[in-house]
């Protein structure tokens, strides 16, 4: 990384961080509203406790707690709103000032999301500890698994970011592109493992899911922390995510190049 690039990164990060701290109250509210996996966790825990043998598909109540708390935390890191921002910019013409600068607006958004993560992290961590203590959730103590998690999740975030970026870019061609975003979110929630661990799904669904990137974005890193996946699973998942990331990276570049031609630069 040369000096200029480093400086850009540093300044963008600092500025976006300052920007996000302005919205810290909103961020807390978003965090708390993203409780779907916690609710699902409670439901599954209840079911497991009353099931014969105290488990469902190999998951005890405590396993479910561990899994869903991990899902909640991981999903926090995978939060992306860039599709909304992009389609707004395209439709309202606020993309114009960004196009005039000698830097792809992509980087602003990407760094901005990471900066928001830093604002989100401290409270998220406190909540995670509280949830874990309350439910007796347990996680792996193997350092290598935690390191693998830290490798996998940023890649998963990048892929989700690129995917949402492409959806946002649809605004160059279509009026209401964000409706598409909801469909993708349902796939992400269902196949990613936000509603239930993927291993509890019918075999056919699991087979289909394996062809999508979603199980590796959310379910896999969580299984790793709860001890239900090992490093060889991670290695496989990592390369699958990497391939999808490269694919969506190329798609984004292509869509951007063609979309900007269609940009109407409305306003003023």
């Amino acid at each position, binding site marked *: 990384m040369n000096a200029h690039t480093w400086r850009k990164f540093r300044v963008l990060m600092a*500025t976006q961080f300052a920007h996000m701290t302005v919205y810290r109250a909103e961020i807390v509210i978003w965090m708390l509203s993203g409780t779907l996996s916690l609710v699902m966790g409670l439901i599954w825990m209840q079911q497991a406790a009353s099931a014969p043998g105290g488990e469902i598909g190999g998951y005890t109540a405590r396993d479910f707690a561990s899994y869903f708390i991990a899902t909640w935390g991981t999903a926090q890191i995978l939060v992306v709103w860039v599709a909304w921002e992009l389609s707004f910019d395209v439709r309202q013409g606020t993309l114009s000032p960004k196009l005039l600068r000698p830097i792809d607006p992509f980087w602003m958004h990407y760094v901005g999301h990471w900066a928001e993560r830093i604002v989100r992290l401290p409270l998220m961590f406190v909540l995670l500890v509280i949830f874990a203590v309350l439910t007796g959730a347990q996680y792996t103590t193997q350092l290598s698994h935690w390191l693998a998690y830290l490798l996998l999740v940023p890649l998963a975030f990048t892929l989700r970011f690129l995917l949402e970026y492409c959806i946002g870019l649809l605004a160059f061609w279509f009026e209401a592109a964000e409706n598409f975003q909801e469909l993708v979110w349902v796939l992400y929630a269902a196949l990613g493992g936000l509603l239930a661990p993927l291993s509890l799904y019918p075999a056919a669904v699991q087979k289909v899911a394996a062809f999508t990137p979603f199980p590796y974005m959310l379910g896999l890193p969580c299984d790793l922390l709860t001890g239900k996946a090992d490093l060889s699973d991670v290695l496989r998942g990592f390369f699958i995510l990497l391939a999808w990331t490269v694919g969506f990276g190329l798609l984004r570049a292509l869509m951007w190049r063609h979309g900007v031609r269609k940009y109407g630069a409305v*306003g*003023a």
Partner: protein
Amino acid sequence: MPVPTTDPDITVRAAQLRKAYTVTEKEPGFLGSLRAFVRPNTRTVEAVKGVSFELRGGEMVGFLGPNGAGKTTTLKMLSGLLHPTSGAATVQGHTPQKRGTAFLKQITLVMGQKQQLIWDLPAQDSFLVNQAIYEIPDAEYRATMREFDEVLDLSGILSKQVRKLSLGERMKCELAAALLHRPKVLFLDEPTIGLDVNMQERIREFVREYNARFNATVMLTSHYMADVTALCQRILVIDGGELVFDGDLSALTSGPDARKTVRLQLSRPETAARLSTFGELIRLDGLDVELAVPRGEVSARAAAMLTHLDVADLTVVDPPIEQVIGQLFRSDKKPEPVKALA
């Protein structure tokens, strides 16, 4: 005749530049939406219809025309935001819509309301972002800020949240942020819109100094006559997407046909017929009156009005640009042909 494409002095060239927008029309209501979805009803709006001109390095040119004439559209094409439907633009030797880094570092586009400043943070932070993005060395950044501060008086407002700045203060910051990288070509789209007279003057002063200091090419649109008369010798007039005049401003404002507008606030109503004896009646709205009078006779006519009418207040102003231009075309002499581009 020299071939213009080899003239090193030309910084901006538009050759038969044309932009047609595709507008989707939709009837109101759900059925309308449904119909539009099945068979979109599109229409083409030709905003700019083949415009050609050249600007020399260091030149300040006023780009005038009525609302909807195609000024902003032209500037957006020249700054690379819009891809021309046909024709070509060259700015500092670059094709704008490719938006290459070298091109973007040499130009700026300032649009009245469009802000590049981060709304929730002090303007200072946006400046630092621009410094990093444009790769401006620290020493140059400090020097530029010092110079800008002298003319724009930025002290005290740079550390305030942008959203808390007044319109004028924000415009000053916008302008400074847009020029931080010392662009060689400035496209200014109504930079003084909505500002008070003092602030307008200060912005003009700033643009003038910038132009002198960096020999920058400036293309400026404004609906305020004073902006254009203060800064530009040459004007381009666009109307209905077509360039209708390219020449000296003095020909328009101090020529034999030039006029001034006298605004009257009467204490007693007067008939239109009576008012018309003092000049061409432009507006009569109760006690508010506007009259156009020949420039050379302003004092005499104003004196006559004060003597013969019940005047509460009288001000003399430059007529709005539309009126000047309108007058140019109303007078029976044909508009000067656009300078041949060889």
